[in-house]
């Protein structure tokens, strides 16, 4: 039993283009010819059939330019509804799919009538939906504007055939899973955004490089610190050695003990000066050490603010009053009163700022000036003076001994010891800056440089990390980079899995499509051989378009078009037959330019087709297609004509059930000329 068997049983038009009041075509025959002259609505009918099969409504422009009523009483019906309804037999069950058109609003909508009743929307049975829904490419292969067959064939390459196979084989969900930007890509991209890892591949390369370089940078700094510490050891050894030399010189001069004691005293004095200076600095930083007069001015100012009750109540206090039902005067709170209160609140501080200001006012008022630094300064000057005096005394003492000390050697030792002190200080300071671990100090002294961002996060690019010489900060940056690299590596692993999954699915899908395509070609060639039994024309492959072997060299009028039509339909019939689907074939002006010989050959092909066939023909085609209907009982013929036309005198073509559209030819001649 066929999986899906579709035939068209009835078509109803009303108030569409040239059609006025409702006309109905119906048939149970396999072959059907509907004769309509140019401009009566063949193409319109074809397009509306495509809509019915695919569930795609006509566009607003089509509604406006092609489907709006055109007859003499069109003005009366512009606001009326038009209708196009098709009765389909789908696997033996009747389903009507209609399109209601509101010409005034330029809107169209589907309705469906099935055994379960009338329903709005496009709701044919599921098998029908899965084969044709939104599948315009496939539908246009069997509801076909015949004059377009060559261009359809040009486009009918592997793409549309693959699409048709995927659709007919219900493989769409698999394709949407692994296609570019499909569900798998979508899922993966969502994960990237969630983890803030977009552009992950580039980021991974950059992060890995930054990490590698940062680690090198850290090793270099550690090496530098190690060298500095070694330098310090060397300096200590050198210092000890110089001290020994100096002691030796002094000993030789017999003044060692005395000078040593003096130098010890000098060291104590220097330490005291340093200590006193730092203490005084601490006092100077305190603003309460500023001169009394200045200090009094400040205190007086804040006392006056307090007396004047500045800054006054906070803004919220007024807002609370304004929002109360009763005014503080005891009367009811009116809108006017509320407005008056709220008008002035901007001039007052918010609760929070008021609390800041009150705290400042209170601290200034309560602060007590610390004692004058004059005496500290005098003491400090005295200590510094003592240091200078002591230095001079030592020099004098050594000189007075006139002990034969080599002054150059003594100077060399002293200079070098001074240099060593500076070198030690510098080295210690550098080591401290490299090894500082207190974040507050690091920030105060800007030891992190560009490796600490303004929002206190750690830099992730080597350009920024390189500016930093502090090991603790560099470690932090490296940890952040390692974390990021791990995240990126995880996501890249996921990406590799996704790609592998896509590769497997695509490869399976490709082999299925190739197999079905080959099968389609074989079946289509069988169909073509019926029309060209000796010609040897056959489809070689379906690549970017159809590739033929031994194409016809016939130059008869219409021969190529007939071949094109044959090829197109052969392919679609084969595809549908593989998918176990039967649909009607609807052709618009199929044999218009054919010569008699070509048309006869084409008729032979059409006779061999097994499904329902509806041909929308012009009167000039009926002779060409004579083999199709002449003396055939199972053929339905119908003419749609205007009410001032007659059916003609051809006894061989007496259409049954012909319908009249209620306009006359003269009206449309004038309509087309723009005078109507």
């Amino acid at each position, binding site marked *: 039993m066929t999986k899906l068997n579709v035939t068209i049983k009835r078509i109803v038009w009303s108030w569409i283009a040239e059609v006025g009041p409702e006309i109905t075509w119906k048939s149970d025959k396999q072959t059907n010819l509907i004769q309509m002259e140019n401009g009566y609505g063949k193409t319109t009918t074809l397009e509306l059939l495509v809509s019915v099969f695919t569930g795609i409504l006509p566009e607003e422009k089509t509604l406006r330019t092609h489907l709006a009523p055109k007859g003499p009483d069109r003005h009366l019906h512009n606001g009326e509804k038009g209708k196009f309804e098709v009765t389909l037999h789908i696997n033996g069950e009747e389903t009507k799919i209609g399109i209601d058109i509101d010409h005034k609003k330029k809107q169209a909508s589907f309705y469906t009538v099935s055994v379960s009743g009338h329903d709005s929307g496009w709701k044919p049975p599921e098998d029908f939906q899965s084969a044709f829904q939104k599948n315009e490419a496939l539908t246009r292969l069997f509801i076909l504007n015949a004059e377009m067959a060559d261009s359809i064939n040009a486009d009918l390459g592997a793409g549309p055939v693959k699409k048709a196979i995927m659709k007919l084989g219900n493989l769409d969900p698999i394709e949407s899973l692994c296609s570019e930007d499909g569900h798998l890509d979508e899922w993966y991209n969502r994960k990237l955004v969630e983890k803030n890892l977009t552009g992950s591949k580039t980021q991974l390369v950059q992060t890995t490089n930054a990490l590698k370089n940062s680690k090198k940078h850290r090793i270099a700094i550690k090496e530098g610190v190690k060298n500095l510490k070694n330098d310090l050891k060397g300096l200590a050894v050198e210092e000890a050695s110089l001290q020994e030399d100096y002691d030796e010189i002094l000993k030789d001069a017999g003044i060692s003990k005395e000078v040593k004691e003096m130098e010890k005293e000098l060291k104590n004095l*220097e330490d005291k*000066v*340093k200590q006193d*200076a*730092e203490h*005084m*600095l*601490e006092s*100077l*930083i*305190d*603003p*309460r050490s*500023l*001169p*009394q*007069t*200045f200090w009094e*001015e*400040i205190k007086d*100012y*804040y006392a006056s*603010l307090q007396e*004047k009750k*500045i*800054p*006054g109540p906070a803004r919220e206090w007024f807002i609370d009053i304004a929002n109360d039902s009763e005014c503080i005067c005891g009367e009811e709170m009116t809108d006017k009163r509320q407005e008056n209160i709220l008008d002035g609140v901007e*001039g*007052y*501080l*918010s609760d*929070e*700022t008021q*609390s*800041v*200001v009150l*705290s*400042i*006012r209170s*601290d*200034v008022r309560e*602060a007590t000036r610390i004692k004058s*630094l004059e005496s500290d*300064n005098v003491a*400090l*000057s005295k200590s*510094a003076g003592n240091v200078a005096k002591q230095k001079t005394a030592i020099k004098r003492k050594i000189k007075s001994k006139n002990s034969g000390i080599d002054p150059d050697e003594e100077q060399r030792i002293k200079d070098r010891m001074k240099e060593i*002190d*500076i070198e030690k*200080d510098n080295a210690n*300071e550098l080591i401290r800056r490299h090894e500082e671990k207190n974040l*507050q100090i690091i*920030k*105060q*002294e800007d030891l992190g440089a560009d490796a600490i961002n303004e929002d206190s996060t750690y830099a992730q690019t080597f350009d920024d990390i390189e500016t930093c010489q502090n090991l603790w900060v560099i470690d932090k940056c490296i940890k952040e980079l390692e974390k990021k690299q791990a995240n990126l590596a995880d996501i890249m692993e996921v990406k590799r899995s996704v790609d592998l999954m896509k590769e497997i699915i695509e490869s399976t899908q490709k082999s299925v499509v190739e197999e079905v395509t080959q099968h389609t070609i074989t079946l289509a060639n069988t169909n073509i051989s019926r029309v060209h039994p000796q010609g040897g024309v056959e489809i070689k492959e379906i690549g970017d378009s159809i590739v033929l072997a031994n194409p016809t060299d016939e130059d008869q009028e219409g021969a190529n078009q007939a071949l094109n039509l044959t090829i197109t339909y052969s392919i679609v019939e084969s595809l549908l037959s593989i998918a176990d689907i039967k649909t009607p074939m609807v052709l618009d002006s199929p044999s218009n330019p054919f010569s008699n010989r070509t048309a006869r050959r084409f008729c032979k092909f059409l006779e061999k087709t097994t499904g329902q066939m509806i041909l929308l023909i012009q009167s000039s085609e009926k002779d060409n297609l004579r083999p199709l209907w002449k003396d055939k009982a199972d053929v339905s013929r119908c003419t749609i004509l205007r009410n001032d036309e007659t059916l003609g005198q051809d006894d061989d073509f007496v259409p049954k059930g012909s319908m009249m559209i209620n306009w006359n030819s003269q009206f449309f001649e004038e309509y087309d000329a723009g005078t109507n």
Partner: protein
Amino acid sequence: MFRMSKESSEYWRKMSDNPSSGKIDTQLEWYWLCAQLGLLHNKKSKDNTGFSDVYGEWVASLKPHSNIILGMLFKRYIESFPSTAEKDIPQYMQKIFTHEGSTKLTSEGFSLLDRFAEGGFQEFKKKSPTSPTKLTIFLEKYLEEIRRDVSEKKATEPAKKK
């Protein structure tokens, strides 16, 4: 964010080159010492364009004095307007103070203190054009600068009648 001119930063760095005699530990302490002089002598630079970031919070040694510093700053700020109605004072306070952030300063407040720091630095530089090599020398000159205020004021006050 407290900001300082490059010249002032360099001056401080050079002064810290000889740490054996003691030094001003943090740049923000140097910033405040300059600002203190600026506030005392009411000297401020025209603007703080081109200044570099120093630090965004009070350092530990200055934190206990922050309210007094803000109080001095506001007094100088309000004095800069020829006349100020009492009712408008809260609005001026809002321009300088905020409850947001640990410094309690608005960006206008930061900018104003930066300008006093630069004004104070330029005053000190007149006294000592090059960075003092020892902390003791700096302290002596700084104290002289503070005393200058008192002595200048004394000099301009009329002599008391005996």
